[in-house]
């Protein structure tokens, strides 16, 4: 057996170790810098987007812009019909999408027994969440605009509202289920111990607890609907609407436009005046969305605090 030269071995391995350790720490530092750089790049680009739109759009904002109908001359054009159309759609999504979504969430979480039916429903809902919005537009075009024309009246507010409701349904269902799941079971058991029915337990005890979470999800879903463009274009929302729908059932059956549709129309015109109008419309749209999202985040934070 040849004697092992311990000295040379140890010095060799220790030099190897120190050298590679400094390299490892060096790479570590680079990696940390890369992650911070990524987040700053993302934030800077997104900030420049908002600043660019604000700089272009805010000088154009005035009362006439908010209260005028679209026009062939960019300086006379306004967003009244688009703003009112968006408010109608918002109301329709609240009236249709909210109850249906919450009802479906309650069914899946509280009423249904675990079976293959609920499993199919769950897979189906997660699949629907991944379907591109323009496909919902094709569904709306065929089903609401064409097949159900006697009811909806064709390319109308009702068709738009129904299409958007279907589009945001998965978001509301998932939010409702998560909020219901967060309510402790002891509360339900306490209710049953008093001898009240399942619906009374749900209505009187569980839903009030789950409400902030459900509302948060619903606000996020509605803000998605407010900004949605592709599916409304597909069902054929018009861009030149120089009247307001009457505030009645008949109003549901009038053609419509909406803020993102009007914005799209103005962006795609070559004249600079219309592009400035587009920026101004975006400022209004983003203000509405930011307010809604901020409300949702505040609600959620309060919800988490009270749950802890």
């Amino acid at each position, binding site marked *: 057996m040849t004697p092992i030269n311990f000295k040379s071995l140890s010095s060799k391995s220790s030099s190897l170790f120190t050298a590679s350790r400094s390299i490892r720490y060096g790479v570590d530092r680079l990696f940390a810098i890369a992650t911070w750089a990524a987040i700053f790049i993302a934030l800077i680009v997104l900030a420049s987007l908002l600043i660019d739109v604000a700089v272009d759009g805010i000088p154009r904002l005035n009362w006439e812009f908010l209260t005028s109908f679209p026009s062939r001359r960019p300086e006379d054009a306004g967003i009244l019909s688009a703003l009112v159309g968006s408010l109608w759609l918002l109301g329709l999504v609240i009236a249709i999408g909210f109850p249906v979504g919450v009802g479906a969430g309650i069914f899946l979480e509280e009423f249904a027994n675990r079976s293959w039916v609920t499993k199919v429903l769950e897979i189906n809902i997660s699949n629907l969440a991944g379907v591109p919005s323009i496909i919902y537009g094709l569904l709306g075009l065929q089903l609401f605009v064409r097949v159900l024309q006697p009811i909806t009246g064709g390319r109308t507010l009702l068709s738009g509202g129904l299409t958007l409701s279907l589009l945001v349904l998965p978001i509301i269902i998932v939010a409702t289920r998560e909020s219901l799941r967060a309510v402790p079971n002891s509360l339900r058991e306490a209710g049953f111990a008093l001898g009240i029915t399942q619906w009374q337990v749900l209505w009187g005890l569980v839903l009030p607890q789950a409400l902030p979470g459900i509302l948060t999800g619903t606000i996020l879903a509605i803000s998605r609907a407010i900004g949605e463009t592709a599916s409304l274009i597909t069902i054929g929302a018009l861009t030149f609407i120089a009247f307001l729908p009457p505030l009645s059932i008949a109003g549901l059956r009038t053609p419509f436009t909406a803020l993102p549709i009007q914005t*799209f129309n103005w962006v795609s015109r070559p004249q600079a005046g219309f592009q400035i109008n587009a920026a101004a419309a975006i400022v209004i749209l983003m203000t509405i969305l930011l307010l809604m999202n901020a409300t949702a985040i505040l609600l959620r934070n309060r919800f988490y605090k009270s749950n802890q």
Partner: protein
Amino acid sequence: MMQHRSPDSELWQSNLRLQQWIEQFIKLLAALFAFVSIATTLGIVGTLIFETIEFFRQVSIWRFLTDTQWTPLFTNAQFGIIVLISATVMTSTIALCVALPIGLLSAICLSEYASTKVRRWLKPILELLAGVPSVVYGYFALLFVTPLLQQFVSGLESFNALSAGLVMGIAITPLVASLSEDAIYAVPQSLREGAYALGATKREVILGVVLPAALSGIVSACILAVSRAIGETMIVTIAAGQNPRLTLDPRVPIATMTAFIAQVSLGDTPVTSLAYKTIFAVGTTLFLMTLALNVFSFWFVRRFREIYE
């Protein structure tokens, strides 16, 4: 005893019956609402299949798959879907080259490097940005990014795949970051501590232990990003143009599948025309692509999910 029921208990009995009726009604209604989602899926699949079959009655599937031009609105119509698919693949690839690295690194930063305070501020900002409508990004791509890039890239036309793809990447970055961050944050602390105890550095812990443990969540975030990118409509419609052509040059106008559907919908297309059926055939192609991604994601998460208690 039964004959001597007091008025109070009579009230109670009928009340309970009423409550049970209400309960039955509510349950039925909720079940009905739950099946709206099934009806939606059936509606989508049914609509697409019906109109696509009508389309293939007039245009052979062979031409659909092998033509090298897409001119369905011309008299000498050609139906090479490959033209639209290649455009979609190109813009999506550019977008993912931006969104995946930036989104993932941001997620790692938020979860592993940022202090709790920074995280509490940045996470809601990311979620706010994920909610910016795509028409706003379209404006940004056409009127800010393209003029900017034209100073550096020679031959960049005012409608092009490059700036549409880049901006689409920025648009889906918050989604990738937010979902991956959820997955990374959920990896239990004990795993990290175990790796530190073996002498690993922070980067080695993250790349060697934390990311593999969060793999299923990260991959499903990335797949969702891919399906967002191929389904994205407004950015490409506004900034990438409406010119269907088979090219790999990102500097010239192209037309993606979604942009074609939007373009035809903007015109007043009669429902019996071939153009009307064409948008459903294109929609079916798009739907099948996103469905395949969804199914793959579902399978992957099931196969590779790590559950820690």
